[in-house]
């Protein structure tokens, strides 16, 4: 076939390009190599403060249910299996296998040593300035299986 044409409108497809996980992993690795681990955390905090500003406002307004909605939506989109339990004071989620890590492993992309910071630091930064705190209880670097917990800080 000498000549081929492909025309697409945005509405023809669903927006889901999982290779982006590999690009982000490379970004994290690059910062780590050039500026160290603390710089990776600094970058992720900058990203959360800028992009997730509306979500952070929602957490302050609606509490942990805003995070519950966020995670349910994210893992549904990415096709990840997770179990979630939410109360007013605690949100606990167990992710069977991280869809990002799964995709990278399947496609031969290197998973950055600090890739788990996209869970740990991002969760902590989401809680920053709210009545809640985040804790990464378990993270398996092989498949990204994780147990994540958000809880109400004790009033001082």
């Amino acid at each position: 076939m000498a000549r081929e044409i492909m025309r697409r409108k945005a509405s023809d497809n669903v927006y889901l390009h999982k290779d982006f996980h590999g690009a982000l992993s490379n970004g994290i690795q690059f910062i780590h190599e050039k500026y160290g681990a603390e710089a990776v955390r600094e970058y992720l905090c900058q990203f959360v403060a800028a992009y997730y500003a509306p979500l952070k406002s929602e957490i302050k307004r609606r509490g942990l249910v805003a995070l519950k909605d966020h995670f349910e939506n994210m893992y549904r989109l990415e096709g990840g299996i997770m179990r979630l339990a939410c109360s007013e004071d605690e949100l606990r989620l167990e992710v069977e296998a991280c869809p990002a890590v799964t995709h990278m492993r399947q496609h031969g992309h290197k998973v950055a040593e600090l890739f788990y910071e996209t869970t740990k630091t991002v969760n902590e930064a989401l809680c920053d300035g709210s009545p809640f705190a985040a804790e990464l209880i378990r993270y398996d670097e092989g498949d990204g299986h994780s147990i994540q917990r958000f809880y109400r800080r004790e009033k001082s």
Partner: protein
Amino acid sequence: MISCTDFIPAYSELFKFLDKQGGKAKVVEFWNYLSDNFLGNLRDLAAQHGLRGCWMYWSRTLNEEAADFTMELDDEKGELLFHMRRCPSKGRLLEFKHMTPYPDYCEHCDALYRRVLDPLGLDYRIDLSHCAEARCEGVIRRKKQ
């Protein structure tokens, strides 16, 4: 985890972070790093199939990115044209009211892809003069022997 649907703002903020650390030169260094370490799929397809390999690569990625585009492959002429009516990345960044894109955001395409294709005998040109409206067009030509 950061969803792949949230990657574009993370990418733009990464450029801002690197620019703050080491200026535009550090951003360009990252683009070169990403091109060398991440675009093996495009490199392999283009090395094996030439222009058609580029067609195969972008046929998948642009559909997954839900781009609004036309792509035209003319094998006899040795040309692959692309016309992006609404870039899914820049378009997405422009939609956000609460954050601004890295000013030279669109230059990453030129840096990443040219670096892969040029050594394979493929000349990559992109016109970014309308990138502020999330539009661009470009051509990849088989270089004359």
